[in-house]
């Protein structure tokens, strides 16, 4: 078996929903031994979030939960009980990382704050993921994907000029937070090689989106200007629904441009590739003229683009060095020849859902690659193995803990 990149780290994933579980998954995918510790008795609320296998809202059939928790083992634990807290402290003793996403201050109120955990294991890295961080006036504000987009500057400049600001239709803020939590945690582990000490990382999801929209703050600090949603599509712009924006193809949507390296290709060159070298370029001879004749350009090109199939356009133009985009559906991704050839997908058997094809390898480390080793855990699947087998809790004691509602 190949040596893994991160197999030397034990991670306790106390987090729920998307961000923390994604961070823990990134460790698990590259070899770490990750134990997902779910709140007893119902587990990670993500088990109740769709999409579901065959649309059946069953706790073992959430595809979101499944995707984010593959490669982890899972136990349940009730931290509200003294016996549950004691078990967590046992687990923490030989762990390297603990990821958590409880409301700020909750773990401390149970005697499980960073200061408490540090005493048990000074090398532990604790990463806390919350909506607004561990301190500050909004600490206890309620967060959500919508809230973070609104409070980052990202939404204000997105969407149509005369309509309400717009966010992405899939909750990206949590994925941003997860990726950021993963690198920050790994950096703290790297630091531990020198210092021998763990530490506490306080991550804010709201700031994660604000960091993503970095040029908003820079723009104002540098120039005092505030960018609004663009009123019209300008040459070189990428908003809206006109040429250089997103336009209809025969079977979906594409984003065509005349950009072909630097500088932009002339109109005649572009329409030659489009299959219409005969088109009159007298209005579009250079970029300045194109900028002055945007509407005429749309009138000429949009009907022609609509005759192209989206992926045929994308492949034809990209392979000739043009810049093009295609609005891919989930089906397109599932059938994508690039992902297929790169070995992006892997298959695994799940006890309830059967065999599933799982995406995928985020990046290639040839010496120590990503691997899919186990399906997401069933609720409490490894209670006996972990508490009994590894912590040495007796069978009778396990029964008692179950009766107490600790696990």
């Amino acid at each position, binding site marked *: 078996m190949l040596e893994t*990149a991160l197999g030397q780290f034990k991670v306790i994933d106390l987090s729920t929903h998307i961000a923390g579980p994604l961070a823990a998954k990134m460790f698990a995918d590259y070899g770490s031994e990750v134990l997902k510790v779910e709140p007893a008795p119902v587990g990670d609320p993500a088990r109740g979030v769709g*999409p579901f296998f065959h649309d059946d809202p069953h706790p073992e059939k959430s595809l979101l939960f499944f*995707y984010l928790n593959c490669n982890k083992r899972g136990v349940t634990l009730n931290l509200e009980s003294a016996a549950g807290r004691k078990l967590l402290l046992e687990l923490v003793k030989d762990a390297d990382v603990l990821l958590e996403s409880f409301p700020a201050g909750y773990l401390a109120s149970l005697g499980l704050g960073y200061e408490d955990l540090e005493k048990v294991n000074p090398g532990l890295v604790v990463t806390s993921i919350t909506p607004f961080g561990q301190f*500050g006036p909004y600490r206890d*504000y309620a967060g959500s994907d919508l*809230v973070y987009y*609104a409070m*980052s*500057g990202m939404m204000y400049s*997105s969407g149509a000029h005369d309509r309400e600001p717009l966010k992405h*239709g*899939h909750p*990206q803020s949590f*994925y*941003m*937070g997860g*990726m*950021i*939590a993963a690198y920050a945690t*790994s950096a*703290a*582990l*790297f*630091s531990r090689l020198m*210092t021998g000490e763990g530490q506490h*990382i*306080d991550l*804010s999801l709201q700031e*994660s989106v604000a*960091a*993503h929209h*970095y*040029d*908003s*703050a*820079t*723009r104002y600090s*540098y*120039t*005092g200007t505030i960018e*609004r949603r663009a009123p019209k599509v300008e040459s070189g712009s*990428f908003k809206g*629904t006109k040429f250089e924006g*997103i336009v209809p193809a025969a079977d979906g*949507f594409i*984003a065509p441009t005349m950009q072909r390296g630097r500088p932009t290709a002339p109109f005649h060159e572009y329409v030659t590739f489009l299959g219409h070298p005969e088109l009159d370029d007298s209005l579009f001879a250079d970029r300045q003229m194109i900028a002055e004749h945007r509407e005429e350009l749309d009138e000429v090109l949009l009907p022609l683009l609509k005759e192209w199939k989206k992926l045929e356009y994308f492949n034809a133009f990209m*392979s000739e060095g043009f810049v093009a985009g*295609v*609005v891919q*559906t*989930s089906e397109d991704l599932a059938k994508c020849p690039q992902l297929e050839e*790169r070995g992006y997908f892997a298959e695994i058997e799940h006890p309830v859902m059967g065999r*599933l094809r799982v*995406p*995928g390898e*985020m*990046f*290639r*480390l040839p*010496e120590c690659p990503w691997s899919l080793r186990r399906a997401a855990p069933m609720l409490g699947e490894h209670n006996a193995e972990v508490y009994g087998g590894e912590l040495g809790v007796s069978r009778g004691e396990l029964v008692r803990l179950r009766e107490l509602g600790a696990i």
Partner: protein
Amino acid sequence: MGKKGPLAGLRIIDSTTMVAMPMALHIMADMGAEVIKVETHTLFRTEAARLLYADNEPGDDPWNRDGSFNTLQRSKLGVTLNLKVAEGVQAFKELARISDVVVENNRAGTMKRLGLSYEDLKKEKPDLIYVSNTGFGHTGPWRTYAGIGRMFELTCGLSQFTGYPDEGPRRVGKSFFDQHVGWTAVFAILAALHYRQKTGKGQWLDLAMYQIGVATMGDALLDYEVNGRNGRLMGNRHPYHAPHGVYPCRGDDKWIAIGIENDGQWEALVEAMGSPAWALEERFADASSRLKNQDEIDELLSRWTVGWEHGELMEALQGVGIPSAAVMNSRDVLTNPHMRSRGFYERVEHRADSGIGPKIYFGRPWKMSKTPAKIRRPAPGLGEHNEFILGDLLGRDSGEIGRLYDINVLGKTPTDPPDFKPPSYQRQLEEGTLAGYDPDYAEIVGTEQDA
């Protein structure tokens, strides 16, 4: 130790342009790694073309005054090496010999042609970690395709969800997945460093933007695999809960985002509105009926929100536990009391001779308790650290360094700068691209004091 940051002791060569990799490496530099940006004065700094000149003045050296560039290159050292000249390539190799990581995002094949591929540099430094970032990776049928950040929302499947449902798919970010890729690159580089720590081995990382973007679509991909379903345009709505949207407030282009996610929050909202008769009707009583009738709720809710100032409404609603937020513009974000109190923004004093003065940059969305990160220095001016890197690090004497300037390996001014003109804010205000311009912005953001 603490002051040095978690990545103190690492040296990284940054031979990258655009957004994703520069961002990854400024974060690593904030965390204490010594990151050396290798660029050349013989090509224009592409990132310095966003026309965000400090105080809207291109000045004598506009390539050093662009806010976007200065954000993405902060905390780094800078050297100009013309890699079209043998002496430039030689200096790059010597730098690799004393570095831990090399990161490049050139078109596949470019580094090989220069004699600076992984195979070449491994001979200089056997345990080198070498990252090649491209749009689609170095293998597969799409390997030659241009990896342009602004297209990845579409190609990675995010645009199938994004847009007003009555219109069509849209982009939201400017080059949205660049940042995801940057952050994942930091994780990937650290994973390779952890592996090197254990085994003593370096390796070559093939980092494709496309795969990182698609990794945020796992649930959507499985939904297709299992249920045969594709994404649909969501606007600002939630798949299961309503109301969930952005509603008008008092004033021009002021908005509040409100996202109800359970019955308790809905009841709190009804009470905050003063329990109007419409809100108590049976057809809004539970999640599924609210979801079904959400067009109507949105209309009625808007009539209430429009009487409010957006910041006050956010405080009122958050005060009773409702996920809500004023839609903030760049001024609101930069002056936000919460982020200010957390030290999210950092004030950077630029070199006196740059004429840029103090500016505010975003920090990082996390804090480490023992090895805090910070912006270590402003972005390097073109060729700013040539003497330090060629002299102190590579041991060239001043005569030799002078010769490298003479043969155009080193330089501090671009050989072929384009014509710089500041954008006209007046025109952009008139056409509506800009919502506002505050002449007194330095006072508003408090640039003069500590951020």
